[in-house]
């Protein structure tokens, strides 16, 4: 309660809101000073586009965490869906030809598989009442294995003809803004609206804050919780639809550690890990901070690349210190 109590005081409220934004702004300024190309159109769109995968997933993760859950399986789920999608599309070419319809089927497969995988996690968690950590740790192993197995240990590659047809989904766009960025933006806007302005968003926070209270208020706790996992699964599907056209392949290395990145983004953004409070816009800032750190490290070469991870780690902690600054005093 002390956290929450502090959270309400105006000063602290300001820091939790301004904190992540400030961290992001500082990173951008640092980047602009270190390299003139940093704020160039190309670099900006690159960074935004590559944020899109984790970003789309992290929006879903925001809901899961707000409702007091967790999902460790998203990275390997993405790999599995990508693998499945490629397999299905490749296998349809003989019968349907390498055209748009095949791609549409592939997309449908991705969405369905994502939804199914999310539902499966959700059902195990809500029906069997097992800790989300364990369920999704289990499914993380399962999906990772399945994709390795589908790829026979190697890499699943999309048929070359299909790939050039599909590529515009990653590289193309409208008004110079590429599709991943557009989709990411749409997901974020919808996510923010759902979190703020729908009953579902409120129920998530209520469940994460106090499940018992939610139950007493006739909130259908299990259903809401299930829906957070299903939505996350669906978003993983959407992220995968954007991911596959980029390099046209999937392997057991695909989506490695995405779960950690997504969770980190959510928490850097100010969502509370134990649930009860979440904000989608914060998550977006979190994702951008994480992506920017990598980008900055590549654009400069102050330090041994071996130490990149150390700098990354330090900046993540600092970014969060910024928003907690109020608390250190008490």
């Amino acid at each position, binding site marked *: 309660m002390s956290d929450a109590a502090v959270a309400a005081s105006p000063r602290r409220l300001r820091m939790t809101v301004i904190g992540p934004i400030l961290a992001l702004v500082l990173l951008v300024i640092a980047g602009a000073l270190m390299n003139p190309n940093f704020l160039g159109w190309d670099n900006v769109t690159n960074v935004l586009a590559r944020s899109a995968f984790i970003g789309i997933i992290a929006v879903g993760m925001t809901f899961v965490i707000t409702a007091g859950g967790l999902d460790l399986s998203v990275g390997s789920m993405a790999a599995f869906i990508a693998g499945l999608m490629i397999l299905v599309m490749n296998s349809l070419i003989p019968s349907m030809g390498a055209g748009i319809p095949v791609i549409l089927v592939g997309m449908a497969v991705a969405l369905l598989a994502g939804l199914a995988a999310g539902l499966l996690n959700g059902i195990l968690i809500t029906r069997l009442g097992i800790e989300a950590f364990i369920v999704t740790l289990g499914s993380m192993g399962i999906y990772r294995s399945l994709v390795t197995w589908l790829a026979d240990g190697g890499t699943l590659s999309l048929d070359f003809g299909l790939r050039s047809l599909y590529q515009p989904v990653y590289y193309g766009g409208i008004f110079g803004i590429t599709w991943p960025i557009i989709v990411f933006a749409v997901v974020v806007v919808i996510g923010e609206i759902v979190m703020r302005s729908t009953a579902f968003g409120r129920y998530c926070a209520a469940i994460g804050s106090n499940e018992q209270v939610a139950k007493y208020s*006739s909130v259908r706790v299990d259903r809401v919780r299930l829906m957070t996992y299903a939505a996350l699964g669906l978003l993983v599907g959407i992220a995968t639809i954007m991911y596959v056209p980029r390099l046209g392949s999937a392997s057991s290395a695909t989506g490695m550690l995405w779960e950690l990145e997504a969770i980190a983004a959510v928490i850097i953004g100010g969502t509370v890990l134990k649930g009860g409070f979440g904000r989608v816009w914060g998550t977006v800032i979190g994702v951008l901070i994480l992506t920017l750190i990598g980008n900055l490290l590549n654009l400069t070469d102050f330090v041994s690349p071996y130490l990149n991870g150390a700098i990354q780690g330090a900046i993540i902690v600092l970014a969060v210190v910024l928003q907690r600054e109020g608390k250190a005093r008490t």
Partner: protein
Amino acid sequence: MGDAVTVLALRNVSRSFGPIEVLHGVDIALRPGQVHALIGENGAGKSTTMKIMTGYQPPSSGQVLLDGQPVTFANMGAAEDLGISMIHQEFNLAEQLTVEQNIFLGRELKRGPFLDKPAMRARTRELLDRLECRVSPDQVVSTLSNSDKQMVEIAKALLRETRVLVMDEPTAVLTRAETAILLRQVRALREAGTAVLFTSHKLDEVEEIADDLTIMRDGRVVWTGEAAQMDQHSMANAMVGREMSDLFPVKAATPGEVALEVRGLSVPGFSRDIGFTLRRGEVLGVAGLIGSGRTETFEGLCGLRPATGEVRVFGQPARIDHPWQAQTLGLCYLTEDRKTRGLLLGKGLRENLTLQALSKFDRGLLDTGAEERALDQAITDFDIRGHRGAMVGNLSGGNQQKLLFAKTMLADPQIIIIDEPTRGIDIGTKQQMYVLIRRLAAEGRAIVVISSEMQEVIGLSDRILVMRHGRITGELDGDATEDAIVRLAMGVTPTPLKEPA
């Protein structure tokens, strides 16, 4: 009380938790447009009865009758859909959500797929205004004081506009003025034909508002009938099953050396420039309205929140930044908020009892035998009733309060600050507590009692401090009148409980 006009009733209901039966064949009937009071000792089964009537717990045997027909509630929302709602004894609010979000939880107003926030906010504002509660709809609940939380709970129930409203000790955390506001709302509901069931350990309120009365003891109904047939004294006797003597013990203070000296204590945001002196053997009452900052002041004093000022304990200047430092000096604060600050609801009695004074049982390893003996002692001393192996969350509210008291006393503090000592405690036990507090003083301890019950402050204290807006507005001696206290606390004449007709 003819059956024809009964809305909601229990017929021969029993309820067991595991092997232990806590309700034995309870009958109770609520009539529309009538206020029904349910009273009884702590652990008598009042909350359990209420939960069964409102579908939060199923009966083990017997029937719940709605309009004369047996009903079973499929889930926790089911009763609400049938027009029955309940305010729980323990706060039932999601702490991280705002007031408005809590009030509308589960029944949000929508415009299309979206929430109609302006409408909800306006409605919340309106409800809070009806309750004369000044919190903002957008305030996060965790920042509210206990009484404001209670008002939010009440607002939440009022929103439901139900046929039957069940309130489990709604006034326990309210001051007199707020209680008056609440009772006004209850009267309005009665006019509108709502059946109201409520419990309280404040028998004056019961006498004031109840039309019907049911008294329980040890899981059985021992008396039921028109409230007018009983006065406070006979209610108390029926509850405890013996003749009640005077509630307050005689004050026999022989003030000793100065135990606590406070000068210029300020708790940023809550209180300023607090100063007083407390001697051994003395009971110092602290009165004030809700929001006068009593809790925060003394929390600040005990290192529970940031504070500045000069504090001397037994003559020595003390710097207290953490509660454990206070305890080392023999200074303990007993919280008013037993659920979120006082007790570990998911743990057993023993773990809770010894948590604050664990070093006493620490002989390298913990001496569980000694802990068990301490528990035995506490159960006898404080008359804690309930299953010994139970989780504290399953104890009745009053018994939790007694356990909290026992827990603090185990640390053997010399200076004890007790915030709302008898909140939710039945009248019989209250009497025991008062005796106990007096005895502690007689043993030479120094005691501060913060209480929103004027009678308690007056009946118990040797001296009384009155606070208002975070400042001490006056000091009175032990036989001050209620009127004098209220005058200092709010600068106006006291609010009578009785509505001017």
